[in-house]
């Protein structure tokens, strides 16, 4: 069934969109990630303009992560206090990131930055997670593989205003949490993703959050930060296609529940191993895009008048 999208100004198959939403929503609920990294390339293949694809995916991520976050909250798998502080940093980071995104678009280095940024971040995070988790599984250890081997950085640990986050049993500086939230918001807005891929490992390795609260807290952060990003896109350029986002949401909210249910049955270390593999697969996709001959060296996109020289 074909449907015309008034903002994207193209026709797409409704069932494809819903199916895509289910797959991405499942991944979102399972790992606490947004899934924008998977969805956006598919929409571009469909002929949806890049700015509409990125903005509409932000709306879809809000829906799927709301659904997932509520499920985790109900199971008491969210640390609301730590999540709120993260969101505070994340929103500021997102605002900075959107401004930096515009600047990089103007100077013409956005594509390179996105490609290298994805590859470096996801490649290194994926490798660390894979090595840590595999080692943990092989040892049959019962304790979670937090970053015991990571050296404590003096200046980070010495940050003032230490707060106790009772739910996750952590005691640390509020600035440390804000900094992590800010960095994720900044990177997320710059790379056009929610940042869940980076946030989950950051919560685990930098904040040393217990596995139980990782996904739920990450989804809470994603919901809030992507809601701000989505609003900014809609307000600044009207580039969110509600119809497109709605079709994706139908599939993804259902998918998020499926993912959450599966996530409950899988041991935490297996989840981390799977996430590591997916992160590495995405990194590999960007490596292919960066290192292999693209077939046609030229590409054309429609751009708003403000980006003309």
């Amino acid at each position, binding site marked *: 069934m074909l449907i*015309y999208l008034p903002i994207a100004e193209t026709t797409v198959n409704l069932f494809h969109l819903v199916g895509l939403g289910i797959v991405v929503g499942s991944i979102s609920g399972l790992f606490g990630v947004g899934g924008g990294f998977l969805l956006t390339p598919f929409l571009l293949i469909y002929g949806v303009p890049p700015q509409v694809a990125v903005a509409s995916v932000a709306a879809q991520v*809000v829906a799927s*992560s709301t*659904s997932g976050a509520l499920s985790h909250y109900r199971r008491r798998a969210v640390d609301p206090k730590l999540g709120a502080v993260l969101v505070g940093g994340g929103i500021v980071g997102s605002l900075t990131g959107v401004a930096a995104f515009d600047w990089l678009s103007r100077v013409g280095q956005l594509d390179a930055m996105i490609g290298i940024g994805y590859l470096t971040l996801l490649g290194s995070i994926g490798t660390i997670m894979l090595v840590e988790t595999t080692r943990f599984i092989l040892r049959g250890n019962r304790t979670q593989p937090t970053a015991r081997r990571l050296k404590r950085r003096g200046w980070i640990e010495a940050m003032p205003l230490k707060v106790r986050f009772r739910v996750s049993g952590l005691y640390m500086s509020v600035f440390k949490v804000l900094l992590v939230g800010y960095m994720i918001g900044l990177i997320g807005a710059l790379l056009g993703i929610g940042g869940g891929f980076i946030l989950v490992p950051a919560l685990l390795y930098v904040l040393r959050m217990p596995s139980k609260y990782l996904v739920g807290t990450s989804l809470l952060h994603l919901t809030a930060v992507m809601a701000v990003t989505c609003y900014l896109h809609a307000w600044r350029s009207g580039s969110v296609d509600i119809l497109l986002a709605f079709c994706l949401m139908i599939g993804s909210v259902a998918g998020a529940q499926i993912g959450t249910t599966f996530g409950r049955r899988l041991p935490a270390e297996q989840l981390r191993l799977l996430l590591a593999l997916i992160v590495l697969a995405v990194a590999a996709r960007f490596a292919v895009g*960066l290192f*292999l001959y693209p077939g046609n060296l*030229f590409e*054309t996109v429609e751009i708003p008048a403000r980006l*003309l020289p």
Partner: protein
Amino acid sequence: MALFLSMGVVAAQTIELAISDPETEIDSQFSGEPITLFGSISEVPSSLNQTPFDVVVTVRGPVRNRAVYRKARRAGMFLTESRAYYRLLPDTYFVLSNDAPEKIADVSTRAELRLAPMDWILRARIGRSKLPDSYDTALHDLLLSRGQFELKPNAVRFISPTFFAARWRLPNFSKPGVYTADAYLFADGVLVGRTNYTFGVRLTGFDLKLWILARNQPAVYGLLTVIIAVTMGWAGYAAFRR
């Protein structure tokens, strides 16, 4: 709103045009639409009575700005090395004729009338020489391969010696806005008449309401988007909660 209104028929000395659907409406079910433009040749001078006519019709869609990126290998990676910009290039462009345009008119006439897609690319590009370069050629080929530009040398049929029909299909990615059809009448390679006709392609129903809201009240549109997203997320959670 004026953007979407049909502009009506413009009569010329020797050709009059009429369209099968003066105002094409795009709703949620839009998947492209066949369009026929009819042309009637009148006031034919007696000197041309026995000469067969040739017709070229060009149809231009609403204009958009474009960038063309060129990648190059740097440090082993294919990165965007440079780019070219094009201002107000027609988003779609169709060249319909009863024969190949190069058989109908000579190079200078075709260039003067801007019959070829490349003529519009050269006109739209920002800040370079007047000859096509690799960016222009790449853009031309990309838009042709995507079906945004199309050359249809058999799309014009003469129903009688002085009455023709030009048929093409508005693609499913058509942009709403004003479309312009230019018709050129040739006899023995000489331009003997020309006219143009504008028609509207407009959104309708729910699609139109969304479009207007997004353009005119972006703050409300943004808020609505977020509310819908959160509500959908909550609904999904509530529906699957046991």
